[in-house]
């Protein structure tokens, strides 16, 4: 077995040193009833590198690869071009195979990267500080709700109708156990989020959670919601699932959000069928001690040189146990690195240009689709994702499009199976990876299917 270096001679010599007669002597504490006498039956034995690769390639070959067809899916996961150097750098063994930086003297590479990541995220989201990343956007969203409860000592969260339904699902799951109350506002493509949220806030409200741009692609002003929340002593939590948008549109922090969380997958990480992704978490500095997750901070070493350490860990699970701000004991370090490298390659100039290209291509796609009879645009102000209504249920049309070799968006029927009123809706995302030919192919195929 190619990963195991011990020879049988080594094993014998080592057992002698230990004073054990056989390897079984080292498992004497396992009760008789639980001892397996040999490899578990019905499972294959070890395989060569070539054989494993053949098997895995066979499975990979059964998927329709996004990059090989006109591709327009978003709804919380976006396909962007990732420069080759990003993956090259994250595969360096010193990043890839390091552990949590528990010994800062020999982990400055990871720590400095996290400090740079925190700064990039805070600036992008318009906040004072950010943490060293969370599992993903959906779990970061729930953690933000929990944090708002700790800050305000209240337990009622208002969820805007445009919040990703899977994020709502995670919050529902957790609230069942923590006793938090969730007030879910009605889901409609053209809901007036500001008015609905303002009306729902009362003296018990800990926070209002608003996605920006929302699940349908709407971009709208967060300032009135922030004002209404603050007037009632509640916090505004903004959720960003497409961080590239913030290269073009105003940041949630600048519009008054107290906590901004997001999904960082768009930069550096790739689609990966849903994970691993990277949760972004930023807030105002005054809430730092209620913030969940890891934090990297600047300090000096014994010689006065600048260095970085994990800090404020007294909030964390391994110190305060049941009083911890969360049970999280990890972050998405490697995905945060990919995000940070991609952001460094872009820089401000590149990010703004990338965002502008995304927006222009989305506008062009919206124009092409709405030129088809029966297709109407539902989200006039959008970044790179918008919703159209089709004349029929969108879900079977998406499947039919796939048969024609076009991955043409996410149907609202898939996201909201319990809401028949949304069944004709189709959420279309357009990034820089989409070509003019892709747009034409999409529009042509859709027109044929609707004819």
């Amino acid at each position, binding site marked *: 077995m190619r990963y195991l270096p011990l020879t049988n001679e080594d094993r014998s010599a080592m057992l002698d040193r230990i004073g054990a007669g056989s390897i079984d002597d080292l498992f004497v504490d396992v009760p008789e009833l639980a001892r397996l006498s040999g490899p578990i039956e019905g499972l294959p034995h070890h395989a060569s590198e070539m054989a494993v690769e053949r098997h895995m390639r066979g499975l990979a070959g059964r998927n329709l690869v996004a990059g090989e067809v006109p591709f327009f899916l978003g709804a919380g996961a976006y396909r962007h071009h990732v420069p080759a150097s990003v993956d090259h750098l994250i595969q360096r063994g010193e990043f890839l195979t390091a552990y949590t930086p528990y010994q800062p003297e020999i982990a400055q590479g990871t720590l400095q990267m996290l400090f740079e990541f925190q700064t990039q995220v805070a600036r992008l989201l318009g906040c004072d500080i950010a943490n060293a990343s969370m599992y993903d956007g959906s779990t970061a969203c729930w953690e933000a709700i929990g944090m708002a409860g700790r800050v305000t000592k209240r337990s009622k969260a208002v969820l805007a109708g445009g919040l990703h339904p899977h994020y709502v699902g995670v919050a529902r799951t957790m609230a069942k156990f923590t006793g938090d109350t969730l007030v879910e506002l009605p889901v409609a493509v053209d809901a007036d989020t500001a008015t609905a949220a303002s009306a729902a806030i009362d003296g018990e409200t800990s926070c209002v959670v608003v996605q920006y741009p929302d699940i349908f692609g709407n971009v709208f002003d967060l300032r009135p919601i922030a004002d209404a929340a603050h007037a009632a002593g509640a916090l505004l939590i903004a959720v960003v699932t497409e961080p590239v948008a913030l290269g073009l549109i105003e940041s949630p922090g600048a519009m008054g959000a107290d906590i901004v969380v997001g999904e960082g997958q768009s930069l550096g990480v790739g689609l990966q069928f849903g994970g691993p992704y990277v949760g972004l978490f930023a807030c105002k500095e005054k809430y730092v001690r209620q913030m969940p997750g890891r934090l990297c901070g600047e300090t000096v070493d014994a010689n006065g040189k600048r260095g970085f350490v994990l800090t404020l860990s007294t909030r964390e699970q391994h110190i305060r146990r049941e009083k911890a701000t969360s049970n999280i004991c990890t*972050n998405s370090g490697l995905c945060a690195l990919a995000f940070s490298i991609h952001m460094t390659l872009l820089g401000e100039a590149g990010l703004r240009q990338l965002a502008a290209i995304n927006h222009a291509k989305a506008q062009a796609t919206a124009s092409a689709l709405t030129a088809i009879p029966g297709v109407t645009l539902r989200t006039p102000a959008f970044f790179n994702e918008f919703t159209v209504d089709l004349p029929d249920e969108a879900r079977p049309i998406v499947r039919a499009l796939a048969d024609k070799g076009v991955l043409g968006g996410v149907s609202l029927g898939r996201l909201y199976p319990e809401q028949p009123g949304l069944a004709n809706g189709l959420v279309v995302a357009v990034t820089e990876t989409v070509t003019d030919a892709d747009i034409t192919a999409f529009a042509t195929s859709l027109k044929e299917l609707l004819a």
Partner: protein
Amino acid sequence: MNKPNAAGWRPEMIAGEGEAPATFTGNRALMLEEPLIFEIGSTSRTGVDFEDKAAAAPSSVLGNLLRSDPIGLPGLSEAETVRHYTRLSRQNYAIDLGLFPLGSCTMKHNPRLNEKMARLPGFADVHPLQPVDTVQGALAVIHELGEWLVKLTGMAAVAMSPKAGAHGELCGILAIRAALEARGDARSVILVPESAHGTNPATAAFAGYKVEDIPATADGRVDVDALKARLGPDVAGVMITNPNTCGLFERDLKTIADAVHAAGGLVYCDGANFNAIVGRVRPGDLGVDAMHINLHKTFSTPHGGGGPGSGPVVFSEALAPFAPLPFVEKTADGRYHLVEEETAGDHHGSAFGRMVAFHGQMGMFSRALTYILSHGADGLRQVAEDAVLNANYVLRSLEDVLDAPFAASGPCMHEALFSDNGLAEGFSTLDVAKGLIDEGYHPMTVYFPLVVHGAMLVEPTETESKAALDQFIGALRHVAERARAGEEALKTAPHFAPRARLDETLAARKPVLVWKDATI
């Protein structure tokens, strides 16, 4: 100046050959200082070229929502970017550089075939919401890996979506709570032994439970009598780590499980240390109801300086109906189906809900499955045996120079536990750890578990050769002897690392969490 020692392979340090001069750059040959991107980048520089530059026209529909102020994001050219991150990488210790004995973290070799397979476009470049008939292969990976986990643990079902070990703990405890509530038997207390991971009580508290500690016995295991005495109608369950964080097998787990079940509770097993028993013991045979498996530990997916992890949870028959959605199921026609809220059939009708946006850590699943197939059932059994053999070899090779509090209570499993007992007055575990850095090693886990004073938890793993262990043992022995002798220089170690000891108190007292400068 170094010269080969008598054995020919370990350089011997020769002291007193003069102080090194200061350098202009602050660099020392291949040990390079690296500024922050905010100090070397520019908001007008970029390392990417776009197609369609002309398409970048501003939009009128966004009106006053367009971003107006500078963001403050520095850019670097591709060449500068590669150099910046390559230089940073060299400030890191990693398993690719050498033995990484972090106990309970399990740093073993990360095979590169795993990386290659995870990057196949068929896995890396598919969207979680593609029509399910276009992602049959991705669903097959999830299903196939899940089947392995179920069979290796002797359990009934698996939830693949938890994003890390602690997230898996939460999943297991929520399933327990859902099952108890479904039978109209809401209970309020979770029992957690002292030797548990710190995440265990935090998890139980997050799931709405009151947490009560159960003491450890003098030989480092759960005090079974104390646990039995505490059982009652208010106890929802117990969380036990097996093998435990003292590196010992909980011999009485079956007895404990039977008692907990008789009292109407359920058993959660923290499976972080499953690598010690994989292929040799099925936790399901010991009465466990739920257990998470850290794929990065047992199945070698790299941890990337802190993550990502992946924490699938296996369930007994009793808990299977309550596991979270989504699920992947295979029908008789060989098709894979994604069971979500709207498609949940009878046997998932009691599912407690959704834990994450999509389907879990797919990129970790493809790596873990690659590793499992490479080893097979026979190889995985060998993995556990070699991990346990290596740990016991370290334990027995050092117990004369480092206090090993549980050495008399039988073999350890995959990790060897030492304490600071016997070091000179004023010398601590921390000094031993920092001394090991100068020897070219990442230190072991220190000050954990809490049940032992000044704990040092060494986990060599199965991917270390005897020669590598012998060199490590020699290094740790040398540092331990210096600490026993009270050598002052050890108190200021490390001397040869990129940084000397860092002021963690300052970092916590005056937190500086982002770079602040008006220039960018």
